[in-house]
């Protein structure tokens, strides 16, 4: 399912523009949405999920007009949504919570509902804890309940907002893998400010900054933004002042700095091969 966004603008009363004339096409499959906090990612996600109405512009989700009421309702029929702050009812068990959401998503048949909830608990590896109250769940477990509920009605569009925030490394990896596996015929829109999550799961991505689209392309394209702009330098003296220091590691002769910038940070700096994070930073510097 393809999402076509054109001229999308969202103005919050008294808070200014969250999205500014955004044009973007999201193809079927896994798609990453990168941006700093406050770049407008959550606003975009909420508009796509039918929670917010755009101030101007159009949104087409598959054959549906996401700005009209009928279209929004139609999108919600095929939508799985994992909000950034997923609140759960602490007094319910994971199984009960999923059962409730399944009912709200229209899975009325009891046997079908039970089967579906059971399958998804298996998918997110929570079968063993399914009958424990959500109150005692860790952040990562709650996230997994969140992804399970998003998948309940077998959605064709999956929108996940900052899903890995607060997860431990192992949980993050498991979560990312799960999302990639789910992509297949679905459109999965992954919003995050963690570059690595996108690097490991998406082929294509977009970068937002201050409500505008500043990049749209493949992971390779974004990485290439930093071609010829990544340097390493070893020094015992002060840290380089030109460019952005990406990492600082202790070294036998002082510190080894990795720097993204237009020019070498020191005469003895040596060029290095860029990665996605470097590309993202280089983009931020150009913007």
């Amino acid at each position, binding site marked *: 399912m393809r999402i076509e966004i054109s001229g999308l603008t969202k103005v919050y009363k008294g808070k200014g523009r969250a999205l500014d004339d955004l044009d973007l096409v999201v193809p079927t499959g896994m798609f990453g949405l990168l941006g700093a906090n406050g770049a407008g990612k959550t606003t975009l996600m909420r508009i796509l999920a039918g929670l*917010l109405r755009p101030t101007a512009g159009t949104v087409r989700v598959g054959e549906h007009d996401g700005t009209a009421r009928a279209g929004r309702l139609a999108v*919600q029929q095929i939508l799985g949504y994992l909000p950034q702050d997923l609140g*759960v009812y602490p007094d319910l068990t994971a199984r009960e919570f999923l*059962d409730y959401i399944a*009912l709200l998503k229209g899975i009325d048949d009891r046997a079908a509902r039970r089967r579906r909830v059971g399958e998804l608990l298996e998918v997110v590896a929570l079968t063993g804890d399914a009958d424990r109250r959500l109150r005692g769940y860790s952040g990562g477990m709650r996230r997994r309940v969140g992804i399970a509920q998003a998948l309940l009605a077998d959605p064709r569009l999956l929108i996940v907002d900052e899903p890995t925030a607060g997860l431990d490394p192992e949980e993050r990896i498991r979560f990312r893998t799960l999302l990639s596996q789910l992509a297949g015929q679905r459109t999965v829109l992954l919003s995050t400010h963690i570059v690595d999550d996108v690097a490991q799961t998406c082929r294509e991505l977009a970068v937002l900054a201050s409500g505008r689209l500043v990049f749209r392309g493949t992971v390779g394209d974004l990485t290439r933004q930093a071609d010829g702009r990544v340097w390493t330098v070893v020094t015992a003296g002060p840290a380089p002042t030109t460019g952005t220091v990406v990492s600082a590691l202790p070294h036998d002769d002082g510190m080894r700095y990795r720097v993204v910038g237009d020019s070498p940070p020191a005469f003895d700096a040596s060029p290095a091969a860029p990665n996605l994070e470097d590309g993202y930073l280089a983009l931020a510097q150009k913007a």
Partner: protein
Amino acid sequence: MRPLPLWRHEARRAGWTALLTPPLAVAAPILIAFVDAGANASDHEIAQNLFGALEMGVPLAAGIGAASLVGRDPAAELLLTTPAGYRTILLRRLAVTVGWTALVALLLAVPMIATGWWAKWPANHGALPGQLIWLAPTLGLAALGFLAGAAFRGPAAAGGLVAIFWIFQQMFADRVQEQGWSRQLYLFATTRGAVPADWTANRITLIAVSIVLGALAWLLLGRTERLIQGVTE
């Protein structure tokens, strides 16, 4: 009609607060009625307390309960994206709250009718139409609470408004009954001596107003944007 398990879930969402509040709200006046009975009060006084439980306690519980429905829902953002529609969910929760309160009212009214206590209050309006004694103010106050909750997006101020409205009508009963328009909106027209000829009109007005307030709440709750931008606390 949605499947029964969904209603069961909503009843659980309401929680034991909603379960306990109506019985406790009617328990106090009933207790007083019993104390009165022990102290040789007249049947009239005892009946007044029993009717007071129905006309004062029941609506207050429903009003505060309805005022507590919007805001404070940790999963609101998720529920707003379900095809079921969040306001439908809220309406179902309102039905659970008001329905349970109504059941408590009936659990008091039916034994009163069976034991003859119903007839001991002169303005009882019969067994069937007499149920408007609690039903009309209950719907009125519940709709007010629901609308206030939708407008304020939180139970604290909404509950405050319901509370003040209720106490206002208690403390200024005479004033409220002095003028035609406020007399039609008086919640306690059965137990606090309203103009008898006005009773039916008063009850119908209260129900009509509850429909208007409920419709306003429905419209307000359709603006999802207000709901996710947070509670005004």
